[in-house]
């Protein structure tokens, strides 16, 4: 067993194209074989701007696979709001959120973002007379109603029945909440 630092030095790979240290390492499984590709940042950029590969075993072809893998990784790592369908990347690109539920769906990312903008993350000040719970419940209702419609369209009647029960329960909860504040 080699110790950590030795392993670190031994692990430093060279770019398969030039001999600079590789900073991007891709592990690929092709036809049951595990292939490792190592590239430096410059060569990575270079490969990304190249056109269609001709040879299945050429470095260009492997590089296209890298591009696909990177895209897939990004997609996996991009949270989505189940209420309105917006992805976090989409939000960052446009600067506008899709619905109130986004603050919950992207909670872990919103906190540092708000800290960045306002220097604070906890709201102090006015709140609506009706509880915040009502607001989230309303949100959930919108989502469940959408799901109910799809279930009925797809003839998934068991699912539809379950959803309908959930909706009835939430609406009763809402009525209870409103009654409390009056």
């Amino acid at each position, binding site marked *: 067993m080699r110790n950590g630092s030795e392993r670190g030095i031994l692990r430093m790979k060279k770019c398969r194209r030039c001999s600079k240290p590789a900073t991007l390492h891709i592990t690929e499984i092709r036809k049951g074989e595990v292939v490792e590709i190592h590239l430096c940042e410059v060569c990575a950029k270079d490969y990304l701007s190249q056109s269609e590969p001709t040879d299945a075993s050429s470095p260009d072809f492997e590089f296209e696979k890298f591009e696909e893998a990177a895209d897939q990784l990004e997609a996996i790592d991009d949270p989505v709001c189940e209420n309105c369908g917006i992805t976090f990347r989409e939000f960052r690109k446009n600067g506008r959120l899709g619905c109130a539920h986004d603050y919950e769906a992207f909670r872990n990312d919103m906190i540092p973002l*708000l800290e960045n903008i306002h220097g604070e993350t906890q709201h*102090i000040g006015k709140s609506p007379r009706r509880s915040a719970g009502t607001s989230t419940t309303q949100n959930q209702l*919108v989502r469940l109603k959408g799901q109910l419609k799809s279930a009925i369209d797809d003839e998934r009647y068991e699912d539809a029945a379950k959803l309908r029960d959930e909706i009835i329960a939430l609406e009763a909860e809402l009525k209870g909440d409103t009654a409390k504040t009056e």
Partner: protein
Amino acid sequence: MDLDSLTQNVSEWLRGTGPESDIVVSTRIRLARNLAQFPFASKATDDIKAQIVGQMQSVLVDLPISKPLSWIDVEALSDVDRQFLVERQLISRELADSAWPRGVAIAKTEDVAIMVNEEDHLRLQVLRSGLAFDDCWEEMNAIDDAIEERVTYAFDDTFGYLTACPTNAGTGIRVSVMMHLPALVQTREVSKVFNALQKINVAVRGLYGEGSQALGDFYQISNQFTLGMSETQIIDKVREVIPMILKYERKARAEMLDAKRADLHDYISRCYGTLCSARKLSSEETMQLLSSVRLGVNMELIDNVSLQTLNQLFIQIQRAHLQKLKHIELSKTERDATRAALIRQRLTDERKDSE
């Protein structure tokens, strides 16, 4: 509401009265709110936006507040009418330029305006003449409460009122003061003041004109952050910087009077003379002239025109206002002539009144 009738109207907040009205034209408070059961603007279909309009129209028109509100369907308006509302500061440029179901509910006195389907579902606005934070907030707060009785706002215990843009989350409040700072512009000290403000997170921008240009020497001072402080704390933060700006502007004005009173008096009188006699005036030139005359009135160098008239003229000489006055489309040349005629008329009437 009949927009043509508005042209005859004298907006409450342009009265030119209120505390510090020599420099402070108006105080404005705006709240951003969203309804809990609909997606935000970017993900709301036109159908949903129409639903929001339908719901809010009936809520706002029947709102039990001291000033009854009238509904204006902005989608159905002509471009000129939309531009007219923008010039009167009743709707934003963004609302005017959008292409989906949207509207605004306004009070006849024009000091309350509630936009529907702008960046957020609701943008509530209250205006006051001069420096009037508490009065403004009291009315804004009451309106917010009245609306919230009838709808459910999107709200989170941690993040506060939820807005489409995180820069507005939390209180959703924007507190702004519109100030006339011709002396600071003249002595080129304006950027010094603004740098000082930026350091304490107060935002400044020129009101008219592109980029850093501030036609007419009008500037808007407002809060930068909306989360982590209460509404009253944010109001106080803006309130605190005003005395400093007032002091600097007044000091610069006093220095100008000291150094070159005769020159200043001559210059301002010529500006007034041009406004009284010119046959064509571009909007840029007019803004400059009006700004100098307004300074002259505050410095008591001339007195044949009131602050109220001047404040109103800044709005009435704008493009859509002139067009609505004439009821036909005007070319630039015709606008410049109409503008000059309007000003000549108003200034003559004013002189007659004072005799």
